[in-house]
């Protein structure tokens, strides 16, 4: 008589615990993001105890290594993740492969419109929204306020000021940027390209890399090195190397992302209090351009808890979270309202300048073939900068190769 009772109780208990087991939401993030969001995640888990539990997998430090990890698991078909934090350039690829799920049916359009316009970019593919931005990100020009009163406005001014400062031995290097053959070089070039009035792809997917403006842009980058406005070593610089040199006071200008600001304000920085940031230079009469970076959260297609996952995304990207991430880690907010928040501005005076940069962001081509076409551009630019390849030849080759990639894919 006792046995059926025990069996009944244990079945009932397991059924109860099964239905009351908290929903697990697994998120893959690059290590720095996992660290910076950890207190927000803990707070969410505390507030939703017994209902929803977020587990964050701390991915590798390097951007592309995170992509490798995500892709490996996605290819196997059964990814353990519900949400991944993805870079703006991965989105079309992931969407086309059917790995991430459209967020349209969850999104409240009013909430979406509360995002600043620069943060709304880079989240959609073929008319559907696939990603909610966690942090806005765009290229900026950092300048030394102890060496000059005003930052330069045009490419020529930037070059001349850098060269003069180097020649007068005021700094060892003038302008440092990302010239290594990798994605950063494409980001740098996109800004210069627009500064000269050029385009990478036009609205009809026509490749514009061999236009006069493009060639001029590439030549300008080479000239920076030739005349000594930038050290030759920039052709092996990524963000970290550029920041190291600038932080140690060896350079007058640096092209980098907003994260560099908080690094430059640390006590270890030799240029603390001597740095300003502004928009990238552009030819007279042309608007500045700032390459759109940005990371955002996407829900994977094979997640079983999409609705809960969306709630988690909105929690992590709420205004309160953005405020915290901005004040503690310098993450650029995405909500338009926060840019006018007097309290925030008093804490960090760069906010209006960030807003200005966000209004001129340029997205890199939103195509699943982006990695290919960017790689072609990187190799050709690197040949111009390091192997003395004539800019005309290299850019024409870049155009032809890009065209072939687009044609052979049938799109």
């Amino acid at each position, binding site marked *: 008589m006792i046995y059926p009772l025990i069996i009944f109780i244990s079945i009932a208990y397991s059924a109860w615990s099964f239905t009351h087991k908290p929903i697990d939401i697994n998120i893959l993030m690059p290590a720095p993001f996992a660290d910076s969001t950890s207190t927000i995640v803990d707070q969410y888990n505390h507030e939703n105890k017994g209902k929803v539990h977020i587990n964050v997998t701390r991915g590798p430090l390097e951007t592309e290594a995170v992509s490798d990890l995500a892709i490996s698991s996605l290819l196997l078909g059964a990814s353990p993740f519900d949400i991944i934090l993805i870079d703006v350039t991965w989105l079309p690829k992931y969407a*086309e492969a*059917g790995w991430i799920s459209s967020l349209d049916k969850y999104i409240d359009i009013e909430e979406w419109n509360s995002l600043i316009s620069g943060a709304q970019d880079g989240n959609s593919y073929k008319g559907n929204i696939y990603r909610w931005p966690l942090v806005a990100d765009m290229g900026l020009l950092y300048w030394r306020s102890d060496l000059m009163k005003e930052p330069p406005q045009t490419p020529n001014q930037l070059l001349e000021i850098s060269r003069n400062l180097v020649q007068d031995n005021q700094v060892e290097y003038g302008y440092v940027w990302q010239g290594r*053959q990798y994605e950063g070089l494409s980001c740098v070039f996109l800004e210069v390209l627009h500064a000269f009035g050029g385009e990478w792809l036009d609205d009809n997917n026509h490749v514009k890399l061999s236009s006069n403006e493009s060639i001029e842009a590439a030549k300008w980058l080479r000239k920076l090195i030739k005349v000594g406005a930038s050290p030759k*070593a*920039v052709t092996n610089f990524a963000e970290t190397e550029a920041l190291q040199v600038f932080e140690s006071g060896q350079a007058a200008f640096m092209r980098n992302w907003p994260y560099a600001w908080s690094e430059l304000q640390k006590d270890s920085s030799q240029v603390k209090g001597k740095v300003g940031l502004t928009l990238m230079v552009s030819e007279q009469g042309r608007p500045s351009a700032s390459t759109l970076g940005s990371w955002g959260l996407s829900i994977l297609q094979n997640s079983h808890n999409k609705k809960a996952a969306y709630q988690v995304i909105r929690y992590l990207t709420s205004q309160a979270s953005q405020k915290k991430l901005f004040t503690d880690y310098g993450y650029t907010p995405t909500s338009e309202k926060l840019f006018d928040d007097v309290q925030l501005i008093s804490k960090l005076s760069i906010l209006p300048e960030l807003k200005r940069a966000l209004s001129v962001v340029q997205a890199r081509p939103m195509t699943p073939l982006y990695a290919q076409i960017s790689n072609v551009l990187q*190799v050709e630019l690197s040949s111009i900068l*390091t*192997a003395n390849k004539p800019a005309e030849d290299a850019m024409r080759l870049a155009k032809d190769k890009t065209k072939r990639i687009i044609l052979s894919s049938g799109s």
Partner: protein
Amino acid sequence: MNIILLLPAIFLLCLVFFIPLLRYFWLSLHAYSVSTGLELIPNGGVNWLRLLEDDRFWITTFQTVRFACVSVSVEVVLAIFIALLLDQKFKGIGIARALTLLPWALPTTIMALCWRWIFNTPNGPIERLISLVSNEPLNILSDPHLAWLATVLADIWKTTPFIALILLAGLQTISKDLYEAFRLEGGGKLQAFFTITLPLLRPYLLISLMFRLAQSFGVFDLIQILTGGGPAGSTESVATYAYINAMRFLDFGYSSTIILGGFIVLLLLSLFAMVFYVYSRKIFISKL
């Protein structure tokens, strides 16, 4: 009966070698990329035609063969010296042998990061040394001609001990009586090296040559971390090219084709090494 005993080995070989190879071949006959929505679509060898016309594949293959041949040749010569040294009897030989192996024991990724720092401009130690004698920095990793030499140097540093170890094992199988007899006949030390040591080391040289050729042909981690294939694509290897095609471009069909293309080149290279081995026997015998 013999066959049965071989079965486990054959099974293992199939599992880790033939099945993946067949799978690559099968994939190479399909369009299988993000453009096809990751669907397998047979495309009748278009990937192979594309490989033949792909300049970048051939440049990359040339760079890989150059990397493999230069680094392995230098390594073998250096390793012979090191092995001869380690074959001597002196105090602390055990420690010396262990120390020699240290570079081989270090993980390539960590070692490559260290080299990246060593070659770094402007703050790396090499540039600091250069700055003592010249105002112009070398910009090692920014110069297509120097960057590939930097990868070769890093590879030599790491894998010479491995060859030295194999050759040391070979040296110890050579009977000391041979040298004794040679000396009594009035032969010099240098002569002994060319008439006894080198010919008897041949099988060991072949083993290390084969191992290292295959290994350096597949070089990936060192390049990926040290240079990322740049500058101007000058250090890209077949493996890194296949990798970006698969993991960055999501073009698995073409990536498989690149891997197989590289495999065929490696087979030819190994064949060449074998022919060289057989031919070297003739040289040595004619000397005797």
